[in-house]
């Protein structure tokens, strides 16, 4: 236990040290990881196996692979290689998460507010995570548009975007949407809706408007050829994404808790002829697992969080196992910058609670979230031709004592424990210099003696580099 705590402390201390752009450039375009235990996800666990990463792709998986002369060779004897973890519910790197003034905010885009310097990204890389589904918050029945990213920490935000990922949107049901936790302010009207009935009505109204909007545009396009003097309909950024949902071009990721509201959304989706791609959190999913499976939706859940609000009282830790057995594609997400660093342990819990197999558990943080985001042809397993998004672990990722040595995204190292440790003295020196600079001198008279100053490592307290 002591070792475990020490380990956790250590993990909480490592924080920053991104590779800067220049260092990322210096990375070899070819890396051969030798003699590892490879958790392929789709083809079982391969002992004493090499993995070749070339030009951003997995170029080979097998014994005694050859690499070109300038390849970087990593001896991974005794180590584990697994695909980069995919977090299907994240709010990292968002400068703002909720546009809460309206009940329908499908016009807002998380892509507009990305912060590629968010230090949480580096910490997630240190936990073996390489892909995030960045979702709008849960303040509205219909929230903003999502962004799927690869964690290319140190690179511009535009390079984070996951090419070809299906566009998505956040929906939300229940307490957050009803604004249950918001105080009543005298003289201020509460935002509609205040009940689950109202939530349903808001979504039905929005899709009714979207259907009309689509018809208006269809009619205009048909008539515009004949009549040059027709004034075009107004482009409505709120309704355009909803039309995309109706046309099957955008995935719905719906935050939900209780069984009745899950059934409500399934019925509503059937009524308008669209599909819910994932139910997020879905704590009572086990009660309606068959219905979720029949709709074809996935479930993205927590391992064992419950009781933190009224609608979370009926949660059980067997949710993952029951949903999986019903045929639902299940992923484990973080919804938290902190939990995101240890999704491996969250997945492992499913083996403990619900007797899931190691492969089933691993899939919940790799291939399954990839399927839920429409990127399963690119990531989620170690197969030739897939993106070189992999992490080298110093032990089995389901052990609490294991940690990540190196994380690759598109074949480029974005986290390396040894480099991180090696850079710390350099950073301490830089800090000392910076603190002496004129603009950093304390404002008021009364310098402190060095002993009076509480010192912490140079790389802590929210640093980002």
């Amino acid at each position, binding site marked *: 236990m002591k070792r475990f705590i020490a380990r956790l402390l250590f993990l909480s201390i490592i924080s920053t040290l991104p590779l800067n752009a220049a260092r990322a450039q210096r990375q070899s375009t070819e890396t051969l990881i030798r003699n590892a235990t490879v958790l392929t996800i789709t083809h079982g666990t391969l002992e004493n196996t090499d993995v070749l990463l070339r030009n951003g792709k997995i170029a080979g998986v097998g014994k005694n692979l050859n690499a070109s002369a300038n390849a970087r060779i990593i001896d991974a004897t005794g180590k584990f290689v697994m695909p980069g973890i995919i977090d299907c519910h994240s709010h990292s790197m968002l400068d703002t998460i909720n*546009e809460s003034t309206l009940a329908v905010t499908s016009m807002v885009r998380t892509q507009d507010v990305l912060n590629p*310097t968010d230090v949480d990204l580096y910490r997630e890389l240190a936990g073996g995570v390489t892909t995030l589904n960045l979702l709008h918050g849960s303040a509205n029945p219909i929230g903003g548009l999502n962004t799927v990213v690869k964690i290319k920490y140190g690179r511009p935000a535009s390079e984070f975007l996951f090419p070809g990922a299906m566009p998505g949107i956040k929906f939300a049901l229940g307490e957050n949407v009803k604004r249950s936790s918001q105080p009543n*302010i005298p003289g201020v009207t509460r935002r509609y809706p205040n009940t689950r009935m109202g939530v349903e009505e808001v979504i039905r109204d929005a899709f009714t408007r979207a259907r009309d909007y689509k018809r208006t545009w269809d009619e205009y396009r048909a008539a515009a050829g004949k009549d040059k003097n027709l*004034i075009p309909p107004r482009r*409505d*950024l709120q309704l355009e994404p909803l039309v995309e949902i109706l046309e099957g071009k955008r995935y719905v990721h719906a935050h939900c808790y209780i069984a009745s509201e899950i059934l409500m959304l399934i019925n509503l989706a059937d009524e308008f002829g669209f599909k819910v791609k994932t139910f997020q959190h879905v704590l009572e999913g086990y009660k309606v697992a068959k219905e979720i499976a029949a709709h074809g939706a996935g479930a993205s859940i927590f391992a064992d969080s419950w009781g933190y609000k009224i609608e979370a009282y009926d949660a059980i830790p067997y949710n993952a196992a029951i949903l999986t057995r019903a045929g639902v594609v299940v992923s484990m997400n973080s919804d938290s910058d902190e939990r995101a660093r240890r999704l491996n342990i969250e997945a492992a819990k499913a083996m403990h609670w619900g007797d899931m197999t190691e492969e089933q558990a691993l899939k919940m943080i790799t291939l399954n979230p990839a399927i839920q985001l429409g990127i399963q042809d690119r990531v989620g397993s170690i197969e030739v031709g897939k993106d070189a998004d992999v992490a080298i672990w110093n032990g089995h990722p389901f052990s609490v004592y294991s940690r990540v040595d190196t994380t690759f995204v598109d074949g480029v190292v974005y986290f390396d424990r040894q480099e991180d440790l090696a850079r710390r003295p350099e950073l301490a020196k830089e800090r000392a210099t910076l603190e002496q600079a004129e603009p950093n001198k304390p404002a008021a008279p009364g310098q402190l003696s060095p002993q009076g*100053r*509480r010192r912490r490592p140079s*790389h802590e307290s929210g640093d980002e580099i």
Partner: protein
Amino acid sequence: MPKVRSRLPVAVLALLLVALSLNLNTNAQRSAIDTYAITNARLVTVSGPVIERGTVVIRNGLIVVAGVNVSAPPDARVIDGTGLTVYPGLIDSYTNLGLPEPSPTPSPGGGLAALLPLPSSSPRGGPNSTQPPGLQPELMAEDAIQTSGNEIEAWRSIGITTALTSPRTGVWMGQSALIDLSGETPQQMIVRSPVAMHVGFTPLRGIYPGSLLGVFSTLRQMMLDAQRYRDSMAIYERNPRGTRRPDTDRSLAALIPVVDGRMPVVMLVNTEREITRALDLASEFKLRLIIAGGREADRVAERLAKQNVPVLLSLNLPKRTTPAMAEVDPEPMRVLRERVEAQQTAGKLLKAGVRFSFQSGSLTDTADLMANARRVIENGLPAADAVRAFTIWPAQILGVESQLGSIEPGKIANLTVTRGDLFARDTRIAHVFIDGRPVDLKPPTGGPSRNLLSGAWSVNVNLGSRDTSITLNLRQEGDRLTGSISGPLGAGEISNASVTSAGEVRFTVSVNVEGQTSEATFAGTLANNEIRGSVTIVGSSPGTFTATRSGQPN
């Protein structure tokens, strides 16, 4: 004869008046003289090489001639410029000068206050607008400009003759004007209006857009709406008979020059990612973008140069404002680096070929402006380029290079005359000419912007029946005010403290009156080294107070 005699004194009086007006000091605003010659001065023309000893002649508000072999015209008022340097009038390329102060609102604290919509009286809204305040691009700085004010005086006293002034708040903030900082009417001050549309990314309170997410969507939707409004109107005007008349919309109409790329858009952004987002939005709608703020613009320099996007670079350089304290964690490296690197941005922009000009960036202490320009020069910007960033570069960026920015014949006679180099530590501003006229200079130590409130004050509080004496210690840094009280009313830190450029002081503090602890609000005005005003204590009848200086800050 009697007639003659009676006329004579009048004539004498008239002559006397003329003579008097000639002899009045050169600072007289309404002087009959309109021709001046500054002789034997060092002329930093900016458009050409520095003239070490020359004469500049101005007449009727314009520069007539500047050079070595120039003699003063006989009707000119001659100023001996020996030991003086003449610069083109300095331009501050982003201010709110001349615009009314926003009505005082509770400081944007957290909690419930942040959720409440703002009272409808502020910010200012346009009449019959289709949009709420904060989303009204039709607002014009021109319509709100006032000719006087302490800020205008303070700015021209450090040699700023011209300023871009923009409405203060909003997402679509409105349209800016370029003004000369002297004139009897707002109309006289305006050099060019509108200059640009201004966009801030601060969400509105209580209504959509209430977050940065919504701000971007709102900007997008309104620009799409403006494009459609333009097209609909064009279709309607071609064929009014038989076409349903579109509703008129002043907000959308104001955006048409923006989406057509005719009017530049100034976006207030500082960090690398904010600037990148502004560039992306401008590319999406083919806007003529100008960056204002630009603290980390050097990190996006390549793209700024390629897209020919200029930067109105803020000289409000970040610096640590907290004292050293044992119990506080060291500051993050990011913050430490940011403060050091902000000083180097201008030098790096120059090397990268990005056009930029200087602006005060809501600095409240005018002394900081030149001090920070000095820091920028020490960190890699050649001094001659720093002069350009205050003169010809802003003139070019703001589209007035044929009127302002250099000492050339035919340009507006805005001149800043210094004793010593513009950026030297002990330089004095000797004369400032605006539109050909000398203007009054306020001594640099005047006004509360010089942190005049700092110090110990002995305060006499009169609460109706009785007087109480307490001690007040204040510390002012620009518009930041902190401090504490001690005495019979108890001891404690003041909070919610503010000070305006007009010397209006406000703060609240917990006091102990007759065994009851209550909140006291002090509101007063600093004048003649005294603060006088009223004090309101919850549960007591209102009183008055007078504070006199009792010592320096401890």
